[in-house]
């Protein structure tokens, strides 16, 4: 296959950036999208150009490093598939592909397709954990967890932190990400003690990072490569209302 790429190139956070056009030749259907970019980058290197910077690592859809807008859609056209798991069989000869970084105020571009997502770590720091010191845990079977709860917690916990949800959202909201962690821990008996403090702190940090609020577009769950449901946002909102109304001593 031969494809025409329009790739966002930006030298650094202060550069205004622009689309540049590249021809990708000798692309085969079994290649992953990132292998197609490898091919383009190696040609660029050999011909004296500078390769396109993009993040990737595990290339099996679990580390959450990769992520880019592909024809305006986070991670490209295939549902429940991160960019590294997208294969070129989803495209056809002669296609034009527009490739851009995540666009959100809270994600400054570092270079080309690489953005700074450290705001996600700070949301977790605000309360996305259960406070348990190493060594102080009771026996693993001391607290039975109903299978349905464990499964629901797991479904929320599969979030890979790629930030496609933010990129898809017209408000650049990170509510799907935040709610996935809130819901994961709220479904476990271990997570109850800090449940309401957690939701308040995490949402406060979410807002402080400059993410917008959720207005129920649902674009995030469409974009999520792990199929995380916006039901978790509803759950977050229930917990948030309850937390706000709870009589909590200062």
């Amino acid at each position, binding site marked *: 296959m031969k494809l025409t790429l329009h790739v966002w190139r930006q*030298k*650094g956070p202060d550069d205004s950036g622009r689309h540049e056009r590249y021809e990708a030749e000798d692309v*085969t259907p*079994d290649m*992953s999208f*990132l*292998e197609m970019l*490898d*091919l383009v980058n190696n040609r*660029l*290197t*050999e011909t004296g150009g500078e*390769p396109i*910077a993009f*993040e990737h*690592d*595990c*290339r*099996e859809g*679990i*580390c*959450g*490093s990769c992520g880019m807008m592909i024809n305006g859609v986070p991670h490209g056209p*295939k549902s429940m598939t991160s960019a590294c*798991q997208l*294969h070129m*069989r989803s495209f056809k000869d002669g296609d034009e592909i527009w490739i851009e970084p995540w666009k959100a105020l809270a994600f400054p571009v*570092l*270079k080309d397709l*690489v953005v700074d*997502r*450290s705001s996600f*770590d700070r949301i*977790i*720091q*605000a309360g*996305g*954990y*259960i406070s*348990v010191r*190493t*060594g*102080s*845990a*009771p026996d*693993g*079977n001391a*607290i039975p*967890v*109903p*299978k349905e709860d*464990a499964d629901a*917690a*797991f479904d929320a*916990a599969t979030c*890979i*932190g790629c930030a496609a949800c933010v990129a898809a959202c017209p408000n650049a909201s990170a509510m799907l990400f935040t709610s996935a962690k809130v819901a*994961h*821990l709220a479904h476990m008996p*271990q997570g109850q003690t800090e449940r309401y403090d957690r939701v308040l702190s995490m949402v406060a940090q979410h807002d402080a990072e400059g993410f917008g609020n959720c207005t129920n577009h649902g674009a995030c769950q469409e974009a999520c490569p792990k199929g995380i449901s916006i039901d978790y946002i509803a759950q977050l909102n229930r917990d948030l209302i309850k937390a706000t109304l709870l009589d909590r001593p200062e």
Partner: protein
Amino acid sequence: MQLNSGVPAGPIADKWDNHRFEMKLVNPANKRKYDVIIVGTGLAGASAAATMGELGYNVKVFTYHDSPRRAHSIAAQGGINAAKNYQNDGDSVFRLFYDTVKGGDFRSREANVYRLAQISLNIIDQAVAQGVPFAREYGGLLANRSFGGAQVSRTFYARGQTGQQLLLGAYQALERQIAAGTVEIATRHEMMDVVVVDGVARGIVTRNMVTGQLESYTGDAVVLATGGYSNVFFLSTNAKHCNVTATWRAHRRGAGFANPCFTQIHPTCIPPSGEYQSKLTLMSESLRNDGRIWVPEDKEEKRAPRDIPEGERDYYLERLYPSFGNLTPRDIASRRAKEMVDAGHGVGERENGVYLDFKDAIERLGRDTISERYGNLFEMYEKITGENPYDRPMRIYPAPHYTMGGLWVDYDLMTTVPGLFAIGEANFSDHGANRLGASALMQGLADGYFVIPMTIGNYLARVSHQPVPTDHSAVKDAEKDVRDRLDRLMSVNGNRTVDDFHIELGRLIWNECGMERSKEGLERALRQIPELRERFWNEVRVPGSAADLNQSLEKAGRVADFLEFGEVMCYDALTRVESCGAHYRVEHTTEEGEAKRDDERYAHVAVWEFTGVGEAPNRHVEALEFDNVQLSQRSYK
């Protein structure tokens, strides 16, 4: 090079307890006066940083990722072992210990492995308390499965994403400590060198990967949790950025490298589909619990797999190993697959795989049960290959996956450089010549949560350090070395890409030091690697600038280190004139074609000392003593 394992005296079951009692403790009020540097934030690094932060040490942790949650521990699928015996099927700490030593083909240190088996119990408790959503039974208790050749069900799992869930548990514990101010993190910083002052590790030199600036940090101890080196093969199941640089730089500064030739080839990966292949994807070994492995008997077979009648299929593992069948250990399953493909029975368009078939399991258990157990793996397979494993058997082939070798460490996990520790896959300690399935997560977390936080105190309480300022001559010298090397990489200005050299090195190591090794092949590799290295330094092209985010430069530095490291791997394989576990020397096999150990001459750890690039390294040995396990020929017939 002194190799004192420091294994405590006493019966094996009491060693760790005795040692913890005899250790010097750091006064709680003094802990914050000690600066501990940790490199890497996978299972081992994140759990170590979080726990040492909780204890009160002043911890500084570094990762080359944008977030600690990206470390490759996240990709582990199958599970984590623990000798809980929740299934009442005869498991015990001793059995897990025994299985691990035997599975490692008697090339690991008994005392370390026993401690690992003991600690396995605490890891599960810790992870559950953190909210790790392990699989549960309907009664709400933890579920287990049997995994990778174990005859008891001791593997805890979170669907096919156990590594992800355990890493997120450790990551969250780490982020909690960062918020509490006990741990400071530097993301997008790559360790480039270790700073050694008067023979003691006192700091590191890092490169800020956004600005390109070199930044040095000093402290009282340095812990490397930097993973394994499977990417020396170029194609492996490791994430693309996994590399040997941190451990190799430590090695160059005096840390002995143990058993570098012990590299595990995982039997169930998706075969390469073309020349552009950038990495390989593992399909969890748990699939072998229900899938049956076979190849067509006829080498010329062209029919679709479902059209090949039962009588014309060779279920070779079931045939060769009637009692273990498809669950033979990884090294054996891998070698047999290679044998079948080499003999011309390979399947798929490129004839480079064997079938892993779920037809019988689906008939027996129903599609829903199979989907419950392996749904996400089946989806992943379909995304990559475009084939649906419910209807058509998977194609699998072995791929490099894990490295048992690593920096030599004593019982306290300290390398041969005082003050420099190595944990997780970066050390050599627990898996001998072959790692059992679901034991990597166990070891990473054992080292990080429970071993290093204790043993580092034992070190710190015994030393009295003057602070090392970052303008100390040893720091400046290390920085200069790093800068010179980066400048040299930038200035070659040749016409070949870094990937090009990495692919060539990988192919060479895979052919000569992969699943099968021979004297002739290894000697050939030892002639070719220096030539390739020389060509690299004359022909590579690293575009862009060193004072900028430059992914080509990052890659180039790592590949340059692989080009040095590959040699010691081959030296190790050449001088271990026996077969054991994953190290299979074609000259040393039993009549049935199994690995044949030579316990008289090789029941030891080989530890390599760096003598210079292109110089033959020195080989030292740590003799292994087996007081609790009877050495035997592994048999899985």
